[in-house]
């Protein structure tokens, strides 16, 4: 239980140097290669030697049998602060908030946070069949539909309970596709029409093809360091106004209609000293559109069950009234394993430092990023969120 004590701010710490290694549908390279490319990009752009990185946080599903420790030798790092965060869609924000505290406390000076996964032709099936003990015992033997089937049940229940329609999810997906059209490495390169969305083949009803992310290989990374360090490295920093993290919230909800954000949303906004009206764009974790809709509700943009209405009454493209998943999200760019948990965060940093890969959101000064991960059995267990701001 929380004591009610106010939390320390992240003043003096920034996130900088957003890195994306362009995604590929399949890769014959290993996860080690993809993570290595991201680290190399960081050292190159910041003109650092590997030994200068004294903190390292890594997230991956396919780097086994190695852990973060083995990777230090692989990459020639000698960090004094090390973390392994295989939290899927929650990896990015969890890495950010841990690294920020380490820098604040002086335990590390320059922390590289990296997520990368490869995608061999057989990777996806292997990851699914051994994802968790509960998945192995109680989900995978039931049709082996993977996350598609689990989210199909969550989506069906959400539609039954709150009257969401496939057209509502279509609006989210189509707007994201528009945002992705200016991203060169996006897996999906063509405009998505409502007809294409509605008539796509069913994967696990009511989930159809364009509700699913494309598994691919890729890596995302960023640096966390002191404001002054970022300046000395010649990197534009992004301030961290608040963060929250929660695992296995609401275990007695029969089916998932909300994530841990609903428990922590007040703290998220009060720590930042802002309200939901103050953000200029939002990056939700979008492995399936239903979970984006839940995030809009649970993070305070609308009440529970009003997600469909909220989506109907806004334009969600980068030039719209509610810019959302500004690079197209995983639904359009692809899901590079754990890098999917970094995608929204890294894209938000680009928008807040005016170095977008695609189109720039006008007046992008404050952003909310959220993460969600790990369908251990019947629901996603991990939720997290951060409010970030352009450095003044």
């Amino acid at each position, binding site marked *: 239980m929380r004591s009610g004590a106010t939390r320390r701010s992240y003043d003096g710490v920034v996130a900088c140097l957003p890195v994306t290694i362009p995604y590929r549908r399949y890769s014959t390279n290993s996860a080690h290669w993809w993570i290595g490319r991201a680290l190399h990009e960081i050292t190159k752009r910041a003109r650092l030697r590997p030994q200068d990185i004294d903190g390292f946080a890594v997230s991956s599903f396919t780097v086994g049998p190695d852990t973060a420790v083995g990777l230090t030798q692989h990459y020639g790092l000698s960090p004094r602060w090390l973390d392994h965060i295989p939290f899927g869609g929650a990896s990015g924000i969890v890495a950010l908030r841990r690294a920020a505290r380490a820098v604040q406390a002086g335990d590390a000076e320059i922390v590289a946070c990296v997520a990368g996964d490869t995608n061999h032709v057989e990777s*996806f*099936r292997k990851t*699914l*069949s051994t994802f968790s*003990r*509960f998945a*192995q*015992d*109680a*989900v*995978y*033997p*039931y*049709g*082996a*539909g*993977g996350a*598609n*089937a689990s989210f*199909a*049940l*969550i989506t*069906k*229940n959400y539609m*039954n309970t709150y009257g969401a329609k496939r057209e509502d999810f279509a609006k989210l997906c189509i707007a994201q596709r528009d945002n992705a059209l200016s991203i060169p490495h996006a897996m999906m390169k063509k405009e998505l029409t409502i007809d294409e969305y509605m008539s796509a*083949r*069913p*994967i*696990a*009803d*009511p*989930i159809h093809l364009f509700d699913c992310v494309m598994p691919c290989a890729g890596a995302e990374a960023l640096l966390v360091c002191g404001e002054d360090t970022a300046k000395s490295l010649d990197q534009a920093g992004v301030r961290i106004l608040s963060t929250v993290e929660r695992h296995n919230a609401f*275990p007695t909800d*029969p*089916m998932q209609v909300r994530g841990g954000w609903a428990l922590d949303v007040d703290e998220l906004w009060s720590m930042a000293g802002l309200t939901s009206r103050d953000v200029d764009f939002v990056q939700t974790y979008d492995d399936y559109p239903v979970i984006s809709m839940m995030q809009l509700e649970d993070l305070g943009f609308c009440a529970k069950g009003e997600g469909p209405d909220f989506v109907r009454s806004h334009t969600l493209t980068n030039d719209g009234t509610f810019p959302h998943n500004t690079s197209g999200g995983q639904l359009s760019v692809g899901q590079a394993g754990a890098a999917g948990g970094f995608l929204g965060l890294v894209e938000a940093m680009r928008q807040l430092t005016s170095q977008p890969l695609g189109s720039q959101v006008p007046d992008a000064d404050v952003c909310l990023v959220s993460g969600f991960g790990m369908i251990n*059995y*019947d629901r996603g267990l991990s939720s997290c969120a951060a409010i970030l701001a352009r450095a003044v």
Partner: protein
Amino acid sequence: MTQPLVRPKRKNPLARTQLPLTPPGVRSRTAHGLTAAAAEGRFALQVCLDCNTVIYPPRDACPSCLSARLPFRDVDREGVLIAETIVHTSTEPYFRERTPWRVGTVKLDAGPMVVAHLHGDAAEGARVRLELKLDKSGAAVALALPERDTESMADDPHLREMTCDPKFRRVLITDGRTPVGQAMAKAFSDAGASIVFTGIADPWKPFPGLDSLRKIERVEIVPLDVTDTESVTEQAEQNGARIDIVVNTAEHVRAGGVVHRRGLTIAREEMDVRYLGLLRLAQAFGPILRFRGADGVNSAVAFVNLLSVHALMNWPAYGSYSATEAACLSAAQCMRAELRPGGVKVLNVFFGPLETEWFQTVPPPKVAPETLANAVVRALRQGLEDVFVGDVAEDIRQRLAINPKALEREMAG
């Protein structure tokens, strides 16, 4: 409502036989508590002895109080099907060739949420009954049935995938000379088996019951002597590709202990009929059964062993017989492992003393051959692996679970 099965047409001899695949069968050690329940047709989940929480998926600590005292107990199986989905795309070859495949989330009245396979008559929003079934991998899965039985519900394709229903299947009863063999032929005929091959050794030797056996519908008497390797092999060559269920009714019951009985002649005969007979059948029919595990509506599904319950604990009055039965039980466990890749089940039916001439001096309760035969059919319809028939068998099962040493002493009389 379930579409009733249509009697399968004669197989096109030129058509390729679909090879059997199995669904994912890997489970944690704790989760095999479900497998143990499913093998006997019980619905058991973990129940915390300290706080009574009913737990699923299986865990090694109670999520309410962290207790480690979590035995599997029979619990209420009713609940509501909250949400369903139809899986069209699967990463596993077994499901890939069986999609669309319905699964759903069931909220049990007992507490937990269970992702389950769905019977075709289980509807979203409606009340359902959960059963634990052994799937083709031999591991337990939950299956949601409609709250009340529906017409032809046994013909549902999801359910039939997990059972060994004799309907429209072809059966081999290995020995039709005995009362048990004859009762078995009748029970399978009544259960809708398409052909009941009934083996008779030395057909020129008359035996009681032959006339009534001949009158049973769809019974086809075939020459078969389980003590003769050539005879068994010949029968397998003749009809093996048309046999979906083998029921070994060959028996050899003689009283006498290991010390008391002089000489090895009877013991050798026992082993020849029962243990070596089983091996001959396994070697002749096992490979064809395993190959035909996915061969349509009348795929190969089961090998049935009738075992004295004294296979589990020696009964010194029939001590040598008990030892032979124990050898057969051990071989049956091996057969299970070997037939599993074909999705073919080995059903072990443990019975107490039978109402037959060889148990003449034994006091009741005894098991009538018809009772045993009906129990076999029922167990196949449910897809079970282990069944105990009669009061003596059930008594020994329970005493064995409580204190095997006490049982051993008490069996001595």
